[in-house]
């Protein structure tokens, strides 16, 4: 009987083709929009999600704008539990024009690269990058975006550090997984420091942040406290936190936007739930006499209710499946256009599960009221609905 009822539910679902198509389109668009908005939210947190629990970031306790003496690195390395220390400085240069934004960091390659194993680069390119003080290592997506190849000269116009800065691309790294940012531009801190020393010596030998490698992620809080204690009451006090907390600090600045997007994503689902509920209520009302007939023939109210639930689920899941399938090309297309804003823009597994869950909820919620009504309708009243 289950198969028979399912077959009947499927036929009922496509009985009014135009209505079914419009409802289905609505669900597809809603699930697609939901998936895209969730992907945007996910992209916002991508940096934090990709952060390693074995990396700490030490920065000025006042603000990121203030740099720290490079000499701090040696003292941090002495803290028990610290396995390695490197540093990075935000450069903020412009490539040709302002709109070509991408993150650029002056780093110490020898210590920095081992701390970021997710940046996959062959050994020869790594050596070439380390050897060349003007060398740069760029992400695969960034290189694709501007058509850079190894050996190309890339010139950036400095904004924080004025002047024209030329670099030679020595390596193009790939991300170890989908969540790795492949839009970064890394170059030698020495090259930056050398120039600063000549034009503004009091700003030389400083860096924006220290990246601290630790042996045990669970000791992060303790080590952070010990690092900060080293520089307490100094001219440049530090704030050490996990890389995840550091990244979330950036997200917090725009958290209201993220929250708004999250709310909109759920509102989209609520709207389609209302539309779908209306469709199912209309369909069920039109078929009152059929449901009464089934009950007269001896079908239990639960079977009649299940018929409506099955029909609603057919529409909800079919629309949901199509929406999920369409999310992938849509995210690829949008991700390509927003590459400079969201370096990591992928459909997460969690998003797909949420889309599937939303489809189920749409189907189930839309069927609730009409099912209960059909189950409760008195046979004689239902049969009268035909005349």
């Amino acid at each position, binding site marked *: *009987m289950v198969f*028979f009822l399912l077959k*009947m539910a499927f*036929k*009922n679902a496509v*009985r009014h083709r135009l209505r079914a198509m419009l409802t289905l389109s609505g669900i597809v668009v809603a699930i697609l929009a939901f998936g895209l908005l969730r992907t945007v939210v996910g992209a916002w947190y991508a940096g934090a999600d990709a952060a390693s629990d074995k990396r700490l970031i030490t920065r000025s306790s006042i603000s990121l704008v203030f740099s720290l003496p490079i000499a701090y690195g040696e003292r941090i390395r002495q803290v028990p539990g610290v396995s390695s220390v490197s540093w990075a400085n935000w450069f903020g240069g412009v490539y040709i024009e302002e709109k070509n934004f991408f993150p650029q960091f002056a780093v110490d390659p020898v210590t920095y690269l081992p701390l970021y194993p997710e940046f996959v680069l062959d050994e020869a390119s790594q050596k070439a990058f380390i050897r060349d003080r003007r060398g740069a290592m760029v992400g695969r997506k960034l290189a694709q975006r501007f058509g850079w190849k190894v050996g190309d000269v890339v010139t950036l116009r400095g904004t924080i550090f004025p002047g024209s800065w030329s670099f030679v691309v020595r390596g193009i790294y790939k991300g170890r997984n989908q969540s790795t940012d492949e839009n970064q531009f890394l170059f030698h801190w020495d090259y930056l420091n050398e120039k600063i020393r000549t034009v503004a010596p009091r700003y030389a030998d400083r860096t924006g942040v220290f990246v601290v490698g630790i042996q045990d992620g669970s000791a992060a809080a303790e080590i952070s406290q010990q690092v900060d204690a080293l520089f307490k009451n100094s001219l440049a006090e530090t704030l050490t936190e996990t890389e995840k907390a550091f990244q979330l600090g950036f997200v917090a600045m725009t958290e209201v936007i993220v929250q708004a997007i999250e709310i909109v994503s759920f509102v989209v689902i609520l709207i389609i739930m209302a539309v779908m509920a209306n469709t199912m209520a209309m369909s069920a009302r039109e078929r009152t*006499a*059929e449901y009464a*007939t*089934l*009950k*007269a*023939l*001896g*079908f*239990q*109210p639960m079977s009649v209710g299940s018929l409506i639930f099955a029909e609603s689920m057919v529409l909800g899941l079919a629309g949901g499946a199509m929406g999920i399938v369409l999310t992938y090309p849509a995210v690829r297309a949008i991700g390509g256009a927003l590459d400079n804003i969201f370096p990591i823009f992928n459909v997460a597994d969690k998003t797909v599960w949420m889309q599937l869950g939303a489809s189920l909820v749409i189907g189930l919620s839309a069927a609730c009221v009409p099912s209960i009504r059909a189950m409760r309708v*008195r*046979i*004689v009243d239902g*049969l009268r609905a*035909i*005349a």
Partner: protein
Amino acid sequence: MSGPAVSLRAVAKTYWRGGQPVPVLTDISFDIQHGDFLALMGPSGSGKSTLLNLIAGIDQPTGGEIRVDDVDIARLSESELADWRARHVGFIFQFYNLMPVLTALENVELPLMLTSLNRRQRREHAQLALEMVGLAERVGHYPNELSGGQQQRVAIARAIVTDPTLIVADEPTGDLDRKSAGEILDLLDRLNGDLGKTIVMVTHDQRAAERAHAIRHLEKGELSALEVAVSRPVTSEREGGG
């Protein structure tokens, strides 16, 4: 099959409208024997459809006792009644009430879904029922591909496919032209005469009523004293309550 097929004793039905009781049936008592073909007639609002619904177990009386094959159906729960209807009652409605998304064969198969028959057996039974109503060639047709008369024949096949104790027909010819109505009445005749089916039919049509063994008139919720014997002899239908 010693007792009557249907036995009604002091059956009453009252609806409540706007807080006021509206009596529809009062003190109805009579028996219908196995193999009878009874027509219920009366003006609109006389309560004949309500009486049919009570006999068929799709409505509950507010008083009295209705026994079908010695089962007091007024005491059954909704769930028990549904099971009982599936086994004992075949329905024929004025507007056929077929499922538009199912073929003729699937419509006839529908009541068999509630039995323990397997798919092949269900198909065989449904096919046989359609053959009996002369629609063997139309098994794959949807209701909207059939004429009114053919749809009603599918409905009759659906009513007989489970071999029920009782067939109830509510204005079975009410939506049909004269020729189709005649064919449907011929079919009911055959079901009653050849297969011995007990049939209770509500009709406004005197010609349809004359096919029955007996006619009972309802007037303002009460059975008229007059029982009209028609062309064929009344076999067993008689006054109840004593």
